[in-house]
Structures are given as C-alpha cells and as structure tokens.
C-alpha cells in the first residue's frame, strides 16, 4: 500500500468535504447571524437570538423530542419484526437466498412518494383496510382515524425501514454459529432464553448497525409525516423547511437544524453503546 493509492479516494473526499462538511459548517456560522426583514437580507455577525428562539420556545425542544421518539419507536418495531424475519431467512435453502434478497430489497426501489401514495390508498377512508372491515361487517361506517394519525406515519416508516433492519440482522445471523444456540437448547434453555442469552448478544453488532440506519432514516424523514400524519404530522424538519423557505429566517433554520442533529447524534451514540454492551458478555465468555 503506497501513499499514492490513497489518492484514489481523493475525488470522493473532495466532494464530501465541499458538499457535506462545508454546508454543515456554514450552518454553524449562519446560526449566529441575523436577518434584516426590511431589506430581506442576512446580516453577518455574532448574535444568539436564533439560538435563544430555538432553545427558549418549548415548541422546538418538543419537536426534536418527537423526532427522537419517532426514530426510536421505528427502530424498536423494526427490530422486533426483523429478528423473526431474519431467523426465517436463515432457513431458506442456499440457492433461494439470492431470490429472497431481491424480494426483500425490491420495495426499496419504489420512490418515497410512491410508497406514501400507496399507503394512502391502503389506509384511506375508501381504502383497502376500510373495504375489508366493511366487507366483513366488522364496522358499519369507514374508520377515519387510521390515515392522518401517528399510527399511519409509524406504519409507513416501519414499512420503509424494515428491509434495512432485516438485512443487517440477516448478515449478522449468517455469521452466528448455530450450534451455540442448539447447545443452549440441549442444556435446557427455553427458546426465548436461548435467544436473549445467545443469539441476541452474538448479533448485537448487526442490531446496532440496523438500529442506527433505521433511527437516522426515520427520524430524518420529512415527507412521510407530512403527507400521512395529517394534523399530527408536524416535525422539526418541517419547521426547518419553513424557516428556510417561507419565513426566510436562515439563522433560526440553522440553529434548529443543528439542535436536531446534536440531539439525534447524542441519542444514536448512547443507544449504540448500550446495544453493543449486550454483546460485551458474549465476547468476553468466548475461550
């Protein structure tokens, strides 16, 4: 490995520095500026007005907390659904595994707008769910609370992120020596005990990777709550978009965006450490 070979990464590094790091740095700078609303101009300087607005107004900490909660709930639900699915995928005959992978990943090829649109057809007043409920005479009038509620947002987010979680767990499970689980069962462990004491710790890196991806993607989703959440669909991201576009208040948009990133980063880091700690025991007991 020569130093020259490292230059191969240079185009990508430059693109990421200019296109991702620089904009985030500019966000920090602009968050201390102010806006002259008469001239409709940004005024460079060093003020804390936008930070005071974001941290002082209870709306924004609430919206940031909501983003953290949405990401955590989605990560938790996809993990609960992902383990049984990944464990079942493990039993698929080897030559069918590549087909299973395609079946799992294809729904991701649909655009975000397509998925949102399709969920409206499923959950709407005249949608599939109501059609079935009416057809079976379980309800007399269509149920209206499903669409435009937190339920529909979380359902659509779980749908969007489930393939990522399942894939991460599947890869981790393929590396697990199943004889360890069998040994635990032979020694009298119930299925759940064997899962909690053997399978879970030994796949904790996969769980961590999957949870991190799902948390970041679902907490960072603006369109799903926007189109499916109805009156409950307010998000920190929608506020940032509003400050940036409609209100032309870039400093407040920047301060809110940075606060959100900070909160998501802290929660993701702490949660990752906690998940990896589940696996700590398994690694230590290995001879």
């Amino acid at each position, binding site marked *: 490995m020569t130093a020259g070979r490292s230059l191969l990464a240079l185009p990508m*590094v430059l693109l*990421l520095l200019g296109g991702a790091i620089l904009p985030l740095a500019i966000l920090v700078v602009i968050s201390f500026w102010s806006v002259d609303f008469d001239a409709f101009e940004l005024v460079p300087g060093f003020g804390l007005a936008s930070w005071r607005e974001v941290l002082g107004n209870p709306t924004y900490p609430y919206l940031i907390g909501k983003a953290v909660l949405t990401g955590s709930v989605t990560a938790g639900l996809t993990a609960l659904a992902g383990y049984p699915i990944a464990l079942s995928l493990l039993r*698929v005959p080897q030559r069918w595994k590549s087909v299973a992978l395609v079946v799992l990943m294809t729904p991701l*090829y649909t655009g975000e707008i397509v998925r949102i649109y399709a969920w409206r057809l499923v959950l709407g007043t005249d949608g599939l769910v109501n059609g079935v409920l009416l057809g079976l005479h379980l309800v007399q009038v269509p149920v209206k609370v499903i669409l435009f509620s937190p339920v529909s947002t979380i359902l659509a987010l779980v749908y969007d992120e489930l393939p990522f979680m399942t894939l991460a767990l599947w890869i981790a499970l393929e590396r697990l020596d199943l004889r360890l689980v069998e040994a635990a069962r032979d020694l009298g462990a119930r299925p759940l005990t064997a899962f909690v004491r053997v399978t879970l710790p030994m796949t904790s890196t996969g769980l961590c990777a999957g949870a991190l991806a799902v948390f970041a993607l679902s907490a960072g989703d603006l369109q799903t709550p926007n189109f499916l959440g109805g009156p409950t669909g307010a998000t920190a991201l929608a506020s940032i978009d509003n400050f940036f576009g409609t209100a032309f208040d870039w400093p407040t948009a920047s301060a809110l965006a940075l606060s959100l990133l900070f909160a998501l980063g802290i929660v993701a880091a702490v949660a990752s450490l906690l998940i990896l700690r589940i696996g700590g025991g398994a690694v230590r007991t290995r001879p």
Partner: protein
Amino acid sequence: MTRRAAIVLAATAAFLYLPIAVLAVFSFNASRLMAFPLSGFTLEWYRSLAANTKFQAGFVTSFLVAQPVGILSAALGLGGALVLVSARRAVRLGLAALLMVPFLVPKTVLSIAQAMVLARFGLDRGAGTLIAAQIIVSVPFTTAIIASVLARLDPRLEEAARDLGATPWACFRRITYPQIKPAVSAAYSVGVILSLADLTIGLYLAGRTQPLSLIVASEFRRELSPDLNAMQVSVLVLTAVIVVLTEGYGRLRTARRRRTAPRSPSLARTERVA
C-alpha cells in the same frame, strides 16, 4: 425450511408488496374514485398517461439525471473502497467517518445547508447541483457495497500478479477488477435507484430541472388520480427493467467470457472465484 419460517416469510412478503399491489389494482380499475369494491377493468389510465407530455418529459429528465449519478457514484465509490480496504488505520477511520455524514444527517437538513451555500456563493441550482447532491447521498452505499466484496478477495492473487511483473494498473485491470465487477454494477444500480426514488434533494436543489418525482409530488398535493396510479406502476416497472438489464448484462458477459477460450488459465480461475 420449517413451516413457521415459511409462514413468517409469506407474511413479510405480503406486507412488503401490499401497497404496491393495491397501486397496481387501482391502475386498472374502471372508476375515477379509488374505492373498494372495484368497478371493472380498463386501460384508460395508461392511455391518458401515454398522452401526458409533462409526465414523459419528467421521466426523460429523471432518467438523464440518474445515469451520471449511477456512473459517478460507482466510480467514486470504487476509488473510496480501494482505499477503505487497504490504507492505514487512521486513513480508513477518517474516510469511514466522512462517509457516515451524508448517511446519518437527515436529507432535508443536508439539502437546505447545500442550498444555503449555493445561494451565498451566488451559484445557480439546476441539473448539475442535483446530480452532485444525489451522488453525495449515494456514495456511502456504493462504497460499502464495493468495499464488502474487496475485503473478501484473496490478496495472494494480486501478490502473485505483482511478483510476476504486472504493473499496478495491469494488476487492477486483469486481476482485481474482474473479481469486483458484479459489485461495481450493483453500485451503479443503487446509484440509479436512489436517484430515481429521490424527492427530498430535488425539492431544494433541482432549480428549474423537473424530475418525475417533483412533478408527481406537486400533482399529488392536489389530489389522488388514477392516471397517477398508472404512472407509479409504469415507473416501478421501468425501474425494475433497468435493474434487471444491468444485472442481466453483467451476468451475460461473464457467462459469454466463460464459454469462449480464456486468454490465460489464471484469469479464468479468478473469474470463477468471483
């Protein structure tokens, strides 16, 4: 396969394909109202789609934007992956951390920050900025795909080629690249798919360029209509065709080269390993 595993997988597939199936059913339903029970079969929505020039222009734009995104994401990802699997620990960690940024930062935040930079520097937004921003979001994926295959290669093959006097370039072209080609074409597909599926980046960075997702989003804000269903199904089918063609083309070429006499026995073996 146990019965329980089969039931779990069938339920999963049903959940994952339910919205898509509903979409497809309504695209053939003979009623403006999208409601159950269904009213009968029609191709009217596909006919009206074929007459809609706005959608067609949007689709062409999306396709033209997705090609450079796929190609450049794969190329940049290849360069990044080669460094990621072989450089010093510090370089590797730095690169991995840098790649995490566009993956973990919400797309809305990143796009708004990019739009602010462009505005401050007085740069116009358009196809170029849209393509660059979509590449930034897809390189973490393409790099990971290619690096995961590179990491599993047998380093002795490269060492043997170098020992026998191959230049680094010849060694890459004849030994390394044939082994990772499926991963590079998979990376290209992922770049194309992420570009076609994107709405968020387009909202902030497309300028006057109007990809299909933006047109659909603005129609969708007004009302649901059956020709939108027909279009979603068409986009889905076309995306699937692109994926199948790229994957199929790669496999076909590999198969054809296997059938013809290999130039050197060692090369044939590396391909079989791949």
